[in-house]
């Protein structure tokens, strides 16, 4: 099982699509590792730099509604994975992206807006970190000397995929 948690990258906008996460022109790359430099290349947000230290150090992404909409490209979770980001926390996800994350053994966690608003209050904390405990279903936010925990739920199937490290071996044994 992957470990989840660490420095946080805040992306404060709804409907961030998979073209913004990894543009189509890079879908010709043959290995996941080759995608690494192009993470979030086409995302335009005030103060956001896809090549900046916040992106490089991030282990968790926090965003708003309908994260990962658009193309089905699993290159979107992969470009996160090769950059060390293995969890995305948002108010809601597009279906295909959400399943792609779990199928890769990574986590796409939904939280109510009120919880996310509290988490986004740390958006300017340079030392903001988030730890994710999949088994216990808890998130712990640290920043600016404060600690706050949140409960979350993922489906039993998605939890099993995370614990198994993905869907392929699981399915080959069972079906």
């Amino acid at each position, binding site marked *: 099982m992957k470990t989840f948690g660490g420095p946080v990258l805040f992306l404060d906008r709804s409907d961030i699509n998979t073209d913004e996460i990894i543009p189509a022109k890079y879908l010709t790359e*043959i290995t996941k590792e080759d995608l690494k430099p192009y993470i979030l290349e086409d995302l335009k947000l005030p103060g956001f730099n896809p090549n900046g230290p916040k992106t490089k150090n991030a282990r968790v992404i926090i965003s708003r509604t309908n994260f990962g909409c658009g193309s089905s490209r699993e290159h979107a979770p992969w470009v996160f994975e090769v950059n060390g980001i293995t969890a995305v926390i948002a108010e809601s996800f597009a279906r295909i992206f959400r399943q792609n994350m779990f199928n890769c053994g990574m986590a796409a966690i939904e939280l109510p807006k009120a919880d996310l608003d509290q988490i986004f209050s740390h958006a300017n904390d340079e030392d903001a970190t988030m730890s994710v405990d999949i088994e216990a279903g808890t998130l712990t936010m640290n920043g600016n000397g404060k600690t706050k925990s949140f409960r979350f739920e993922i489906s039993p199937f998605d939890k099993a995929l995370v614990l198994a490290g993905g869907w*392929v071996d699981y399915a080959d044994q069972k079906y």
Partner: protein
Amino acid sequence: MGKTTSEKIFDAHLVNEPFPGTKVLRLDAVLCHEITTPIAIDDLIRRNKDRVFDPTKIKAVIDHVTPSKDTKTATQAKILRDWARRHEIKDFFDIGANGVCHALFPERGFIRPGYTVIMGDSHTCTHGAFGAFAAGIGTTDLEVGILKGVCAFRQPKTIKFNVTGTLPKGVYAKDVILHIIGKIGVNGATDRVMEFHGAVVDSMTMESRMTLCNMAIEAGGTSGICQPDMTTVEYLWPFIQGEFASKEAALADYSQWRADADAEYDQTIEINVAALEPTITFGYKPDQVKTVSELAGTPLDQIYIGSCTNGRLEDLRIAAQILKGHRLAPNVRGILSPATPAIFKDATREGLIDIFMEAGFCVTNPTCGACLGMSNGVLADGEVCASTTNRNFMGRMGKGGMVHLMSPATAAASAIEGVIADPRKYL
């Protein structure tokens, strides 16, 4: 209590429910293209699982970048081609026979009512036009589909769209679906099937129904679904006449997949199209729509007619009807990509290709290329395209470029005027 179409399909294909809320379904068709499949093939080889569950149920095409533009895309094509040969996948479509997947596979009769269909492509929802459950998935789900012929889903709820009225002149399926997405938003149907009903859908051709279902994903929908009827049977008849004694017998069989009258819906949304105008996107999300009256005069650089949304013969006929005897405005360039070789041949036979070429259009081979900014019509920074495709994301058709989504009719009228223009005055 009755069932919706997707509930019937789920029940008929259920393998098991490994965990509450997750259903594993048996698949009738696993569709593959050269962008998302090679990595699945590579991973299967690495896991020592280079097998396919049933080569007759796997269909593959090279369509996104074809002919290959460089070594990387040639390698992707080669991985798919070699794999299809190795596993004796007969329904593999290479250069000369290849076209945009969501136009080509239906045209070959591969999709039938009641089917479960997956593909590593978000616009797989197109195939729901046949009364199938058709969902885009990622490479890992595709890999398991290829290996085992199953896929896991959360059972989606269903939203019923009752589309009534009569389509006004110059208003088409594309305008209807853009209007619907504008109404419910880009996540208005997440984890939902969009089931289309009503007199307007009943009178649509299969091509129009595919346009309607194609953009279900732009509202977050898992699949679009239309109700199988005699129009479905007529379209499929060349492929199914050996299976049924008559068209009526086929209709009777396919009707088992129609939603029950007492099916329970998450929501029912009434759409009356009587006053609908040609509808166009204006921003960087498909739910940002306005009418042609509001956007007329918007400057353009390129016109693109093609794609899995609107690159079919019906679309080419509508655009050619408007373009006939006209030239592209001098400030714009035009690109036509018929979606499949059969469409290209029919359009040539009908004289449509001549009309496009005399208007000054470049006619390309069938490919997805420009729609997602991979090849054959990429925009420069700051350029604007009037396009019959399905996504207007920032940079979708090339970094810094902007896309206005519209019907083939509106794109043709805009080609003549060089700015967004109303097609109704040309009809």
